[in-house]
């Protein structure tokens, strides 16, 4: 996984609540057996009409937001299916940070596994950033994970909380499996006592 360093970008505003993973990446794109290449179909049904032409009004089709790395979203972002294709599509498009008041549980975890930082803020702070995002081109946000800070275009700072283990993994690009593999002795001894206690579950 790519290390998470400082992100500087215009942020794209998506004020809709309950943006679900079917919106983020519709099911017809789940037939891939790869992780890459999904960016062009991010938000497909909101982004393109039925003939495949870009819908001008949609935020990511506007010139000033086309290269954004940050999304500011309405409450409960990423609800619905467990498809990791949702963060894969965001990442492939270039999104490294999502900012909302809340996320669906599975989506939230999936982001961290792919080098995306989902930030949770109080509504009033999220709304301030939404206003910044609406201003467009010159309205750059700077996301510093190390210090857990967001610098607004006016220079003011909003701080955020993040799980320290997840933060460490993002900053260092750590792979979960590698970390768990180091605990194989523990897993093995757990399995032994476990299968004695619950013999009907098999070895």
């Amino acid at each position: 996984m790519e290390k998470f360093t400082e992100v500087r970008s215009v942020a794209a505003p998506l004020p809709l609540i309950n943006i679900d993973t079917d919106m983020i990446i519709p099911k017809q794109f789940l037939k891939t057996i790869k992780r890459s290449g999904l960016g062009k179909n991010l938000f497909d049904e909101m982004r393109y009409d039925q003939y495949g032409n870009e819908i001008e009004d949609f935020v990511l089709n506007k010139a000033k937001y086309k290269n954004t790395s940050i999304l500011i979203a309405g409450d409960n972002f990423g609800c619905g299916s467990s498809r990791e294709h949702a963060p894969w599509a965001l990442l492939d498009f270039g999104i490294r940070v999502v900012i909302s008041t809340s996320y669906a549980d599975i989506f939230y975890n999936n982001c961290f596994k792919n080098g995306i930082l989902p930030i949770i803020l109080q509504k009033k702070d999220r709304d301030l950033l939404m206003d910044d995002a609406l201003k467009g081109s010159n309205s750059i946000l700077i996301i510093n994970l190390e210090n857990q800070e967001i610098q607004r275009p006016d220079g003011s700072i909003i701080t955020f909380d993040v799980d320290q283990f997840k933060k460490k993994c993002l900053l260092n690009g750590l792979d979960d499996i590698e970390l768990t593999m180091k605990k194989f002795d523990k897993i093995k001894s757990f399995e032994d006592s476990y299968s004695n206690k619950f013999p009907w579950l098999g070895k």
Partner: protein
Amino acid sequence: MSENKTLYDKIWENHLISEEDDGTSLLYVDRHLVHEVTSPQAFEGLRMSNRKVRSPDKTIAVPDHNVPTTLDREEGISNKESRIQVEALDKNATDFGINYYPVNDIRQGIVHIIGPEQGWTLPGMTIVCGDSHTATHGAFGALAHGIGTSEVEHVLATQTLIQKKSKNMKVEVNGSLGIGVTAKDVTLSIIGQTGTAGGTGHVIEYTGSVISNLSVEGRMTVCNMAIEGGARAGLIAPDQKTFDYIQGRPHAPKGSNWEMAINSWKELFSDAGSKFDKLVVIDGNKIAPVVTWGTSPEDVLPINEIIPNPNDFDVQKKQAVERSLNYMGLFPGQKLEEVKIDTVFIGSCTNGRIEDLREVAKIMDGKKVKEGIRAMIVPGSGLVREQAEEEGIAQKLMEAGFEWRLAGCSMCLAMNPDQLSPQERCAATSNRNFEGRQGRGGRTHLMSPAMAAAAAITGHLTDVRNLI
């Protein structure tokens, strides 16, 4: 931690391998269910790093999401991408030596239907799958939830999952259900009350007389939609009904193991005085047959209500309601019962079991699907289909005008050819009414199998109680 433990606390503790100071924990996984859509990248990851599946015996795979459900599928899957994905699962299952039910096996079906059907799902377990509706298995008192593909790879390689413990939430449904009111109405009504983020960060335990009076299959319907309420998982304490349902299934414990298992399972309940972080109490007597009207599962109303006005919601929700009414082609004040439908879809991991099909057959009772309505039944597994045929239900439903399909996820998520056209309106027994979920521009109303049958008969959303 308090001595009085919740059911969730007990299962968590039994599976806890290690815990860091910040609460990051390594949890043992008893059963890992795998399907073709969320697993190829995980198996590819294993191959690239030269890793094996740690516990192939505890890993069960089946293709379900994008298999066709028409009878010609035995000749092969015509959609190239779908075929490649299913063939990838065939190969991965063989190469890694995991339990597998290939597409033309009679036991193939929706992963959350065949897990319980084959006795893989047992009380007290941890069960994961790269699918959010894994919550279904919570009906057995198992901690079951969806995971992403990176986690699928992690579980394949280590048989463990990195987790932080969720909070405990209790949803108590008291009283008893009226005629025509089913498990689906219960679970939709709960989400209508708590909202789609009401359970975020929590594991829900469903309790109360309504829940204990439900059949095991009804309980699966309730837990299935815990995810639509935002919860990580839903749980129901196992009881004699649960044990009776499990006994004798192919992978259920046998002989002395069965006695041992039962004794252990009888400890699986929340202790008196155990602490819940959140409590929701619902009067089951007041639950009516419901339908969804919008594009979020929380947009639920009793069938005899009218479409709400966006102005009656707070600012953020107002915008979402305007958008969804526009998408759904509905207007404020319209009577739900006057909304005409084009299509009926009966199936999915929410409502694709034998009791659901019996319910549909009972409501149809010699009546026909209204002319011009496309009505489709997709049994949840090959064995459900076979049983319905043996019971004579299949024949009756076909005579009533339903298409009788092979097992799969089908039009619940429309990855296979079973899709809605733009603006086609569907009475569906599935679990999500998101924009585009059943096909681009398709309009989904979620409801129970009984309510879907009623809509099939009249051609519009209908109060099933008027047909009983």
